């Protein structure tokens, strides 16, 4: 799915960021607002719970080159509610979209539609006299391919999730995140709730 896209930037491509955020009201707005005002283009954004209470995970696909992604990452870290950002674009990762497609399908076309689904390993999840609903997960390319073949039958409506991504292998995203140009010092003492140490005079 990481195809070259044509745009103003030479060699612009899609960047996939996995972003852990605190599950608090307004966090999605903060992230979306950041992308808008820094003029980063979001191709897709998905959010969902993680297995850790209070933590949500976003998969953000943005248009841009590696430098744009670094800039975006650094800006995401400016948001107090952003816990972790990892650019998985260049990591071995499984990246999936989900699509639900309602296709016009009279009995006469049923066999053909089912054949297409079979080839694309898509599932029919609902069927009525005149239509079927098809569920497909896969890369964006695969879903595009499926849609191309379903279009002649007549797509009544469809919904897609945008990409979700997870890296391959046994490791979770690195425990100690590498911040842009920086590391976290050994002992983090943020217990100083007052203004201690901030008097610059």
């Amino acid at each position, binding site marked *: 799915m990481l195809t070259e896209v044509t745009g103003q930037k030479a060699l612009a491509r899609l960047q996939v960021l996995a972003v852990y*955020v*605190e599950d608090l009201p*307004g966090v999605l*707005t*903060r992230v979306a*607002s950041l992308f808008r*005002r820094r003029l980063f283009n979001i191709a897709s954004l998905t959010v969902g719970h993680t297995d850790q209470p209070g933590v949500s995970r976003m998969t953000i696909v943005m248009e841009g080159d590696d*430098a744009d992604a*670094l*800039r975006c990452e*650094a*800006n995401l*870290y*400016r*948001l*107090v*509610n*952003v*816990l*972790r950002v990892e650019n998985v674009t260049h990591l071995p990762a499984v990246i999936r979209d989900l699509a639900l497609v309602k296709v016009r399908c009279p009995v006469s076309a049923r066999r053909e539609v089912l054949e297409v689904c079979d080839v694309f390993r898509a599932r029919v999840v609902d069927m009525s006299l005149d239509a079927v609903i098809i569920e497909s997960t896969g890369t964006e390319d695969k879903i595009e391919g499926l849609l191309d073949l379903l279009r002649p039958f007549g797509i009544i409506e469809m919904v897609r999730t945008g990409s979700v991504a997870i890296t391959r292998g046994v490791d979770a995203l690195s425990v100690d995140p590498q*911040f*842009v*140009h*920086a*590391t*976290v*010092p050994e002992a*983090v003492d*943020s*217990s*100083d*709730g*007052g*203004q201690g140490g*901030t*008097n*610059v*005079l």
Partner: protein
Amino acid sequence: MERKGADILWDTLVHAGVEVVFGYPGGAILPAYDALLDSPIRHVLARHEQGAAHMADGYARASGRLGVAIATSGPGATNLVTGIANAMLDSSPVLFITGQVPSWMLGRDAFQEVDMTGITLPITKHNYLVSEASELGHVLEEAIYVACSGRPGPVLVDITKDAMQQSASFAPGTKPVRLPGYRPDLRALPEEFDRAVSMIDEAKRPVVLAGRGVLQSGASDDLLAFLEKTQVPAALTLLGLGCIPASHPLNLGMMGMHGEAWVNLAIQEADLIVALGMRFDDRVTGNLAAYARGARKIHVEIDPSEINKNVQIDVGIVGDIRETLQRLMSRVTAKRRDTWLARIDDMKGDSAVRDIQSLPDNGRLLAAHVISDLWNATQGKALVITDVGQHQMWVAQYYHQETPHRFITSGGLGTMGFGVPAAIGAKIARPDEEVWAVVGDGGFQMTAAELTTCTQEGLKINIALINNGCLGMVRQWQEFFYSKRYAATKLVNPDFVKLAEAHGLAAWRVEQRADVRAAVERARLEPGSVLIDFRVEQEDSVYPMVPAGAGLEDMIRRPSPIVETSQSDW
């Protein structure tokens, strides 16, 4: 012990060391004002919430501590917005507290309801909406911590009226602030650090660019030691002025749009730029494609998102400037760089001849002369606050800063109307210092109502009103870039002397250069606040000037008094 939310608010601020807040009451914030009467905190009543915001910002900059501004919901809150953006752009630690309609009315367009956290999302470092008294104390401690730590900035806490009226138990300072996603303490990667050291050692024509971060991390002495050891000259941003003495031979002066010619030329000829706590603003770089093309670049910044934002950086070092300089100091090699320093000296050329200070008094009062004379009369020791415009640039050029933290100005946002309220905040922060607000006649009128705040608070500030009867900087741009088509820049002004007197200030007018110094002396002797209406030359321009978008070497120089220029009205 159960306390009302409003009491928790003030308890928490007192515990955090807050002594004064600037604000304006109203419906939704009334519970807080009621509780304020039982708190030791001093409240300064502004005449407009924007004034309160700038006062808190001025207080923060002058004291190096948290500034606090408070306003009611709706219009009170939206009036703060310019002040919040101003604090954001200049990384000023200010806590903004706004009242909000009761929680059960939220989202229903209630009377005086605006979505304040939504409005301020892009112009605060962080913000909060609190609708439970039980959360209030902890949120405030978090907010203060975020505002003051790392790269400082404004934080807004929007509190519903019922959260202030409910009771809850909270003991300030007992529960540590825990913000798992907030990293104000990032450190440079060791390999980047090594590369920086060797680049500095190898450089033939290095220049340090020092910004407000140097002042904010208290790194003045460390910077000076570093410069003296390495013999690297430093150029300063507008907000970095004062971080090293103006008279120091390694201090080149201010860079950028209105920087002196040799400063910008040195940057353009440099083979290494070491940027410290500055952010390559477009007013500093000019045309990015033509900016310091021959230089490798090291950028030391506490905020990683500034690195590689505008200028491609070779080595990015994240961290506190002071700590970084101390680490660099022990590793860099002591050097002499006489050839490079001599070359920069050559670049000065006839600049001294062209300097306005060398111009004889021709009977017309020039703003730069007023500021130069003010500098002389106060021995350069006043705490100077400016508004925004031509006078601001002349203060930057002619009120030479020998010591840190004596110059307060609105840099990033360029907020007209900042001067007088910021001076009030600065005077309250440093009551024993001589405070001069240098303002233009345009910006002054945007927040002139705050003169009464001076009187009500019994403050002694001095206002040098640089009155040229027009919006000088805009007029200058029209002269240079819009064929002298002066659209909406001529001002019909009130009688500023009477205006100031009506607000309880002493005021008089000065029209001759010969009278400037005596006027300054007289102002210093006046017990109360003073406004001097300096009637200066109208068609005067700030030089040198790098036109917006031009390369730094393409500056418009000061007209030479020797070689007569064709534009005789310059």
